[in-house]
């Protein structure tokens, strides 16, 4: 089996700060995702990547950048943290068919 590792588990930032979340997978999956989880709103897709150096915008990409420099890693940058950014950010990977997504346990972001 494989594992998705998200770092850090908890991230505290100041309003206006640029913050980076990291994700690593050892499944050797081609596709990786970033979702944002807010209470009552479920999971919303921010970015995904179907291969190294590929980036595809999701439904909530404004205010975020992403980077897929290696097949095994996918990072997400909050370009200017806002107080309403407080949420859990979930990284996932999947084989080509995207029939099963394997999720990490998330990074909880708090903006002061």
């Amino acid at each position, binding site marked *: 089996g494989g594992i*998705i590792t998200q770092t850090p588990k908890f991230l505290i930032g100041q309003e206006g700060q640029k913050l980076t979340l990291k994700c690593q997978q050892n499944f050797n999956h081609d596709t990786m995702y970033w979702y944002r989880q807010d209470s009552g709103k*479920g999971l919303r897709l921010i970015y*995904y990547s179907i291969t190294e150096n590929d980036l595809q915008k999701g439904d909530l990409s404004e205010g975020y950048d992403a980077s897929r420099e290696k097949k095994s890693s996918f990072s997400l940058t909050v370009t200017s943290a806002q107080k309403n950014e407080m949420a859990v950010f*979930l990284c996932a990977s999947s084989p080509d068919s995207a029939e099963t997504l394997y999720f990490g346990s998330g990074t909880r972001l708090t903006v002061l």
Partner: protein
Amino acid sequence: QQQVRQSSQSLTVWEGETAILNCSYENSAFDYFPWYQQFPGEGPALLIAIRSVSDKKEDGRFTIFFNKREKNLSLHIKDSQPGDSATYFCAARPYNNNAPRFGAGTKLSVKP
């Protein structure tokens, strides 16, 4: 706008009852519908899934009923157990890309 809708934010049932969680969608491009189960502090994990060519998928106590014409589906959890208490996400994957969309989730509580 949410492309996948779950009608209840929360649901409480007694141990032994059948829990029914409902989901609907609008996009006809969706052809694969997984349900994910999430426990607190963890990422979601695939529970059961159905393809749009089928109208029913059963796996142990879990059954998906799918109505393509009405664009809705439901997850039935038979003989609910306290260990089934979790948040359940309905998701949908379009046939033409690898980016599943998720509903807002239903938090199920099973009382002993």
